[in-house]
Each structure stands twice: as structure tokens, then as C-alpha cells.
């Protein structure tokens, strides 16, 4: 701006310089100056050692040039500046070539003895200061911040900004990396960021140690980057998540925000800012459990599809449809779950210690006391119950509660809450019927929402289809793709993605089953399962082979990578689509087609 030519130009043509280009206006939060502040501080701190060194050198050199010496013949001789500087350079750095150019006189040696000690101190001071500065924590952090800022600024693909890299972040990092989704991570703890480096993802995931609630850190992490596609607020601190949501909504209203919280009050405050997707793991697990009670197969399918690439098919639980449940731990999770179970028309008995309930909360369905005491448990009457929930925030308590409950009534359907990842093997050994791991619930939900928007739509529509339908779909998926979840991807039947199918689609009788054949052998059907077709605003779940496709349709498929490539070939290569659709072999090149006089069946 300070360029006078530019100012002149603006004065002349100021009104006309609005460029027609549609540049995304993104507010700038950061400036390079802040990151380099520490570098300036380091330079300031190097002043004293450097000046000491210069003064010592100058003094020594000057002394050498002034003190009279003798040449080889005994004639008076004075060292020039160059010789003196040369001598001091190799003496001060302890290299020591000897007395040059002639042997010194006693007066010179006296001076040199003095300067040797002086220069050694000078060097030691300067090098010592430099090494101390390099070890300095603030300096290293400044360097790390600069490197991080540069990495983020260089990103040229859509990325997700993940605030908080706890257990949820770890669970999400792997599947997103498999999908090729770039991430940028902020976490308060340096250990978590180190864990990110050790996770050895395919992509280079920039990680910053910093407070996610600080808008400046969010800015450095790319909130103001044009390619920022979404913000995930996944710290275990509700306040921090709220500040991330606020910052994202105020500074980048155009990006998708997904926030985790366990408090309905915080969720309300989040909703006050823009339209974030708020995930409450307690609430969400309650909904899932209700679905599981009503439709075990739907529940199985949903948890499987949410688990990401390569997940094994979870077993289908057989939760009791009616009867009484006993719930230990009436905190936020317990209250949510009790409400959900009652909505399903089930009776719930709550066991909760005295001090947590208070005097007011003594309802007839509540047993007051410590659940680990046998007398209290007996009052809850476990033998007549059908389900048991160990939902306290302490894993050891939950494990012992489950063991005690099973001893009383081995038939119980047991739900247990796992708070710490380290305890996962213990819960695994207990063979719990339904595990509640908050981090996993959040991770699955975020994955389903962000990875493929069509999958999210599918999961929304799916429960309405009923249990029978879900069971069939699980059978189809396992039959065609195996018991481990295969990739899910989207194809679009538009000219740029499926040029070889355009004429066929336009003809109006494009059966879905016809295109799902192998381009190598059309008698073999591709082992893929179409999950969802979107046409405008309409969605069709699991279209069958007789479904008629039209131009502009989008389809979500699950299947193996080889079959995905096969379908891509059919969609793009004319000769492949001719063979797959009409069983005709036509040459692949236009010239050979002309020479062989074999035009395409539906020439366009």
C-alpha cells in the first residue's frame, strides 16, 4: 500500500478496480507478525554475547598491531591488521597454527596470553548463549508454531479442523485418513500431539499444542483458510467446545460445525450460534438403545455402517422387549437413559447413593444406597428384572456392579458404561451385551455425518424401514461383501462421471441390475450393494435390480475396491459399457469402430 505508484493508480481508477472474480471473503484472524515475535526476542537476547565477542576481537587485534615485534632477521616489525586478525581467528577458535608470520617477542606473548583467555571466555559465552536459546522452550514453541502455520497455509485441499484430539479424535483419525480426508488438529496437551505424530497416518496431519478455545489458535489452525471444510469441537471440556462453536459460527458462518457436549444447557447455547450439529453421547446412546430394543437388526446395521472401513459385523443382541430394568448411577447419563427406557414403556428401578439423590428425590422407583452393598442390591430385586445398567462414571464400580448383578441373575441383559480406554479389555472379558463408550458413540456419529453425506441420510431414513428389512440388508451385505465393512462410495450418473452411460440412461429403461455386471464377464454380477439413490430431493433406500436409473441420479454403494473399479470402467469406457449392457464387443477406439463399421448401440 505504501507504494506511491499503487496509491496513484488507486486515486485514478479507485472505483473501477472491483474484480469480477468471486473470491471467498474470509476474515483474517492471524498475521505473521505474532508468530515471529519470539524470533525477535531471541535476536535481542543475542545482542550482549555478540557485542562482547566483537569487542574482545577488536581489542585483541588492535593490541597485536600496536605491540612492536621482530622479523626473522631481528629487524623491528609490526603486524598488519590482516595478520593480527588471522592470528586471533585461529587462536580464539582454539585451532592454534602457531606464531605467524614470525616468532613473537616477549611483549607480544604477554599480550597474546592475555587475549587467549579473553577470547575463550568470549566464545564460550556466545556459543553458550546460542545453545541455551536453541534449547529454550519458548523458542522451540515459536519454531513449532511457525512450521505449523506454514503447513496449514500450504494446504490446498478441503480439510477438517479438529479441536481436541482425545480418544474420539484417535478413533476418527484413522478412518478419515483412509478416506483421504485431510485433518488439522489442535489439542491442549503436548502428549496428544505427539501421539498424532506416532499414529503414522498416510497424510501429514499438522498438529498444534494450544488452547482450542482461543480464536487466535483456531485461526492459526486454518479457521480462516478458504479450504476449511468443517470444524469438529471434540474436546472433553464443554466450555471449550462452546467457544470453538462460537468462534467458528462468528468467523466462518459458511463451514459445517459439529460439537460434542454432555450438557443440554451447553447444547442450547451452542444452538444460539448458527446451525451447529450438536452430539450428546448420553442422549445418542439412549436413542440407539431404544432402537436396539425395538429393532435389533436395525441397530446392528446402524452401528456397523457407522463403524467405518473394515469394521467387523457386530453381533445382534436380543434385548428384552418388556420387563423391569435396574439402573445404577443416576447422573446425567442415568437420567437420559431412564427417560429413554420409560419412553419405550419399560419400568425402571434406579439405585443411587443418598448424598447424590438429596432429600427431594425419593421416588417409589428409587432405591437409595450404595449399589455395591449387598443389602441395597437386594432391595432392587434383581432376580425379577430383565435388564441391568451399570452407568456410573467409575469403571471399577461398573465392573463390580456387573459381576454382582450377573451372580444374582445370570439372565440379565447388561448395559455397561466404559469411561477409560485402558479398561476396554476388562469390559471385553465380561461379554457385556451393550457397551456404552462415549468416545466411540461420538466418533461414529461424526464419521457418519462427515464422511459421506449420503450415508448420513441413509442412516436417518433407515430405522423407518423396520427390523425385517434391516435383517435382509445385513444378510445381503455379508453375502456380497463379507463380514467386514467394505468401502462406501458415491457415484453420480452425470455426463462428467458416467459418459459411457448417458445414451442408455436417456433411453428410459435403464435397469440398475443391468449395469451391475463385470466388464470382464457380464454373466458375473458385481458384488456391490446399492444402498441409496438420490433423485433431486427424493431418496430411495436399497433400490433393487429393477430400479430404473435416470440422468442426474446419485447412488451410494458398498463393495470391494475391485468392484468399484469395475463399475467405474463401465461408466467411463464405451466399449465396456457396450459389452456390459448389450453384450456387444465394439472396438474401443473411434477409428477402429469406423473401420469395423460397428457403431455404438445407442449412438448419440
Amino acid at each position, binding site marked *: 500500500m505504501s507504494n506511491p505508484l499503487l496509491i496513484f493508480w488507486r486515486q485514478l481508477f479507485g472505483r473501477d478496480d472491483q474484480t469480477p472474480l468471486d473470491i471467498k471473503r474470509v476474515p483474517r484472524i492471524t498475521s505473521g507478525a505474532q508468530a515471529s515475535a519470539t524470533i*525477535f*526476542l531471541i*535476536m535481542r537476547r543475542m545482542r550482549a554475547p555478540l*557485542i562482547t565477542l*566483537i*569487542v574482545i576481537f*577488536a581489542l585483541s587485534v588492535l593490541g597485536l*598491531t600496536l605491540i612492536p615485534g621482530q622479523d626473522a632477521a631481528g629487524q623491528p616489525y609490526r603486524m*598488519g591488521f*590482516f595478520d593480527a586478525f588471522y592470528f586471533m581467528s585461529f587462536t580464539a577458535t582454539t585451532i592454534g597454527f602457531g606464531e605467524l608470520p614470525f616468532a613473537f617477542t616477549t611483549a607480544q606473548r604477554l599480550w597474546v596470553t592475555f587475549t587467549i583467555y579473553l577470547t575463550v571466555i568470549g566464545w564460550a559465552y556466545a556459543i553458550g548463549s546460542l545453545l541455551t536459546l536453541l534449547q529454550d522452550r519458548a523458542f522451540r514453541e515459536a519454531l513449532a508454531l511457525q512450521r505449523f502455520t506454514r503447513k496449514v497455509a500450504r494446504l490446498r485441499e478441503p480439510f477438517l479442523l479438529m479441536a481436541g484430539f482425545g480418544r474420539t479424535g484417535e478413533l476418527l483419525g484413522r478412518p478419515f485418513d483412509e478416506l483421504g480426508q485431510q485433518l488439522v488438529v489442535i489439542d491442549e496437551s503436548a502428549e496428544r500431539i505427539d501421539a498424532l505424530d506416532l499414529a503414522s497416518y498416510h497424510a501429514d496431519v499438522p498438529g498444534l499444542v494450544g488452547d482450542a478455545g482461543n480464536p487466535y489458535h483456531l485461526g492459526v489452525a486454518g479457521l480462516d483458510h478458504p479450504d476449511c471444510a468443517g470444524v469438529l469441537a471434540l474436546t472433553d471440556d464443554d466450555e471449550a467446545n462452546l467457544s470453538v462453536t462460537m468462534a467458528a459460527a462468528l468467523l466462518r458462518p459458511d463451514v459445517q460445525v459439529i460439537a460434542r457436549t454432555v450438557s443440554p444447557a451447553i447444547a442450547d447455547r451452542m444452538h444460539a450460534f448458527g446451525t451447529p450439529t450438536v452430539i450428546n453421547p448420553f442422549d445418542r446412546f439412549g436413542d440407539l438403545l431404544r432402537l436396539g430394543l425395538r429393532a435389533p437388526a436395525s441397530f446392528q446395521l446402524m452401528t456397523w455402517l457407522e463403524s467405518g472401513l473394515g469394521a467387523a459385523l457386530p453381533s445382534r443382541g436380543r434385548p428384552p422387549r418388556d420387563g423391569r430394568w435396574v439402573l445404577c448411577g443416576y447422573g446425567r447419563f442415568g437420567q437420559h437413559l431412564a427417560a429413554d427406557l420409560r419412553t419405550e414403556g419399560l419400568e425402571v428401578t434406579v439405585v443411587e447413593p443418598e448424598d447424590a439423590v438429596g432429600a427431594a428425590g425419593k421416588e417409589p422407583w428409587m432405591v437409595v444406597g450404595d449399589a455395591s452393598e449387598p443389602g441395597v442390591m437386594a432391595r432392587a430385586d434383581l432376580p425379577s428384572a430383565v435388564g441391568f445398567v451399570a452407568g456410573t462414571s467409575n469403571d471399577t464400580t461398573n465392573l463390580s456392579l456387573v459381576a454382582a448383578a450377573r451372580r444374582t441373575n445370570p439372565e440379565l441383559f447388561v448395559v455397561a458404561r466404559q469411561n477409560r480406554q485402558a479398561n476396554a479389555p476388562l469390559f471385553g472379558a465380561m461379554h457385556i451385551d451393550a457397551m456404552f463408550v462415549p468416545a466411540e458413540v461420538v466418533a461414529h456419529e461424526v464419521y457418519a455425518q462427515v464422511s459421506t453425506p449420503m450415508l448420513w441420510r441413509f442412516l436417518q431414513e433407515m430405522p423407518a424401514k423396520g427390523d425385517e428389512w434391516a435383517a435382509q440388508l445385513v444378510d445381503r451385505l455379508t453375502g456380497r461383501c463379507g463380514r467386514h465393512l467394505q468401502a462406501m462410495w458415491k457415484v453420480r450418473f452425470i455426463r462428467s462421471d458416467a459418459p459411457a452411460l448417458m445414451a442408455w440412461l436417456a433411453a428410459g429403461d435403464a435397469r440398475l441390475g443391468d449395469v451391475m455386471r463385470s466388464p470382464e464377464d457380464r454373466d458375473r454380477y458385481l458384488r456391490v450393494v446399492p444402498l441409496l439413490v438420490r433423485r433431486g430431493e427424493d431418496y430411495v433406500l436399497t433400490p433393487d435390480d429393477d430400479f430404473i436409473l435416470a440422468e442426474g441420479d446419485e447412488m451410494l454403494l458398498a463393495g470391494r475396491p475391485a468392484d468399484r473399479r469395475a463399475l467405474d470402467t463401465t461408466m467411463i469406457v464405451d466399449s465396456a459399457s457396450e459389452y456390459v449392457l448389450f453384450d456387444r464387443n465394439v472396438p474401443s477406439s473411434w477409428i477402429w469402430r469406423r473401420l469395423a463399421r460397428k457403431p455404438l448401440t445407442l449412438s448419440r
Partner: protein
Amino acid sequence: MNLEKVVFGFFVLLAAALNFGFFIGDISDPALHNVYELFAALVVSLIATVLKFGDRTQLGAVHLATSLVADLQLLSAGFVWVYASQVAETGLTAQSTATIVSLSGGALLANLVSVVLLVTETVSFHRG
């Protein structure tokens, strides 16, 4: 009174003064240009440069730039002197003296800019 400012001003002015002292006189007469003065000018100029490290203001950046220019000029002058007096067969001729002095003249210009900046900074300083 700020001691840092005193030291800073002292070195900037001293660098300019020494440089001027070396520069003044017939450009090609070696007898009028003392090599010790050149050495002193170089050392003081280097110290002034280090003093200007780490100033984040725009003025500080220009200060540092002028000092770097002066250092470069004086180092070149010193190098020419070493070459002329010790390496070249002819010794310190009028021509090489002229080269040394004109290089120090360039450094003097940079040092003068430095002084002007210093004065500007002082004059434009308002308390409160």
C-alpha cells in the same frame, strides 16, 4: 533518560564520526587515511549493527538495513586494503587508496542515513 537510548545513539553517531574521519581528505593520498581509523569504524559499525537486532518496528528494520550496508562497504574497504598492502606487488597505490576511501564514502552515506533516522526518531518522539 533511557540508558539503552544513550548507548544506541552513542554507537550510531560514533560509527558515522569515525567513518567521516577516515573518509575526509584527498581521496588518493594514503598518508591522509589512517588504517586504524578504518578498523575502528568497522568495529563500531559492527557493534551498532548488533545493537539494532530484534527491533520489530518499521524504523528499526530500516536502521538495521542501513547498518548492514555500512558493514558491507567497510568490510569491502578492509578487504581491498589487505589485498593492496599485502597481496598486490605494487603495494598501497594512489588508485587502491582511492578505492578504499570511496568504499568508505559509501558506508558514510549509509551511516548518515542512520543518523538522520536517529534524529527523526528523536524529534518525532512525544511523551504522552
